[in-house]
């Protein structure tokens, strides 16, 4: 990734986190430091939680949407930002110059974007535990996909390896549509578990009373099957765009190449520097696609920020009954 991208994403991240800090201070007041600190430790630990995916392979939680729904978007964004920053600085895990877009992709976008999606589905779903849990799953899945879209768009502006944007986009989003299923199932069931014991701690469900929370249980299997169906529908839609992209295996190899370049930050001379060599197939189409989905992600994040600023409910989650 180019120096320009690193600086620009760094500035956006810094601005958002500063705003989130102010908002979180209002929400939790003097409780902020101990509660955000210890939940940051929780997210750090939760990222070590390996869960089964299939036939002995495991995935792990990213936790951006989960943190936002449990703690509110601002506190959630701060908590995940701290985890990302400390991992980079104190555990030599993740590049130092990549901090800007790591914070943006792993904390700001999943927390605010995921929270916006959560609130959107809460509107449509029944006001029950089942409704909340399903909304959490969809929000967690979307948060992972939004991160991958954001990464692809940053790639468009600051790529250093000669791999075309549309390949990057379809490979990244394609893989993350699948990765997101695990994130969705674990986040949803984890929130379900918290709702079962301390419903007052779930910021995103603080508008529900005990009676509304008391009914319905969500069955794991139903949930997994439903999630896979949703993912398949999306995958089908995306693959419609991807017909002239290379085959699956090549796509995976590209995906892996991309991950490698994520730890790399060179100075790319100009905006579309590598495009001449990359030989992009249909520039206007992929730019249009990038524009549309990029706008969607930005709108979700903006909606999440708006909700965070406007949100008067659950000002102190521990105080409500």
């Amino acid at each position, binding site marked *: 990734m180019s120096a320009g991208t690193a600086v620009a994403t760094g500035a956006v991240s810094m601005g958002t986190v500063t705003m989130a800090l102010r908002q979180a201070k209002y929400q939790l007041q003097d409780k902020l430091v101990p509660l955000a600190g210890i939940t940051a430790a929780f997210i750090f630990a939760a990222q070590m939680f390996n869960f089964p995916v299939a036939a002995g392979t495991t995935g792990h939680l990213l936790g951006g949407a989960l943190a936002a729904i449990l703690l509110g978007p601002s506190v959630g964004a701060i908590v995940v930002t701290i985890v990302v920053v400390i991992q980079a600085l104190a555990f*030599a895990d993740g590049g130092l110059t990549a901090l800007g877009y790591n914070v943006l992709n792993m904390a700001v976008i999943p927390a605010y974007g995921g929270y916006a999606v959560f609130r959107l589905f809460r509107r449509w779903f029944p006001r029950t535990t089942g409704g909340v849990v399903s909304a959490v799953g969809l929000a967690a899945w979307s948060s992972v996909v939004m991160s991958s879209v954001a990464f692809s768009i940053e790639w468009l502006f600051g790529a250093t390896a000669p791999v075309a944007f549309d390949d990057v986009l379809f490979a990244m989003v394609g893989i993350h549509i699948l990765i997101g299923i695990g994130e969705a199932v674990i986040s949803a069931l984890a929130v379900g578990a918290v709702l079962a014991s301390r419903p007052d701690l779930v910021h995103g469900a603080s508008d529900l009373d005990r009676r509304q929370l008391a009914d319905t249980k969500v069955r794991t299997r139903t949930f997994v099957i439903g999630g896979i169906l949703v993912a398949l529908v999306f995958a089908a839609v995306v693959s419609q765009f991807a017909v002239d992209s290379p085959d699956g295996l090549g796509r995976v190899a590209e995906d892996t190449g991309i991950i490698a370049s994520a730890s790399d930050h060179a100075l790319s001379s100009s905006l579309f520097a590598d495009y001449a060599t990359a030989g992009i197939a249909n520039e206007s189409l992929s730019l249009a696609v990038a524009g549309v989905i990029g706008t969607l992600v930005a709108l979700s994040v903006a909606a999440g920020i708006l909700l965070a600023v406007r949100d008067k409910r659950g000002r102190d989650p521990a105080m409500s009954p």
Partner: protein
Amino acid sequence: MGAGHSHALYVHEHSPIHRLAPEAKIVAALGIVASIAVTPRQAVWGFGLYAILVAGLVTLSRLSPGFVALRLVAIAPFVFFALFIPFIAGGETTEVGGVSLSVDGLWGMWNVLAKATLGASVSIVLTATTEIPDIIRGMGVLRVPALFISIATFMVRYLELIVDELGRMRVAMSSRGYDPRWMSQARPVASAAGALFVRSYERGERIHAAMLSRGFNGAMPTFNHQRADAREWAAVFVVIACAALISALALLAA
């Protein structure tokens, strides 16, 4: 917290770099990494000079080269994928041992390998010579917002405790025969994550109550630690100047 003060990544030593104030070390690390990042990939000699600079820092901090190499293995999974770039990238190709590879892709691979290795080595020197609370304190000196610093300090203070709690949950689950292989068996993992959140949050509430009873008024107390003095900043300036000189020469040559 009787035991376990030292962190796995920290190496106890008494070197000039260990003694350097943390804020100075962070600035130096960021300066070197930024210089490496902007160096054009064609300047192979530049990366050689960086390697000498980093090797000098490793020697000065009395870390064994074997230790740094072992830590570098941690980035191997990322670097491994760089090996694919020459096969998938476009542009003109060249024949290497009968296989057609993208010239641009080969440069891309070199770019990733060289910069990731050097950048990670710098991070390793920083974390091996500075304890985590000191790194966070250094960030505070560098004007990172105090609220952010307080929360980060808290996280690090309770991290091992929460991770241990997670470990105990895992032991409890496996000793009851839980060995999931499919996603549909994931529910207990998720419930454990939920339970861990509730336990962490409630611990946070107890800590807050304990803090209030000891006169906490919303701001964390600050202590006077030794700040970096002019001599230390001068040393940092020399190191960054070296790195910046290499990148400037490489940019001019390109």
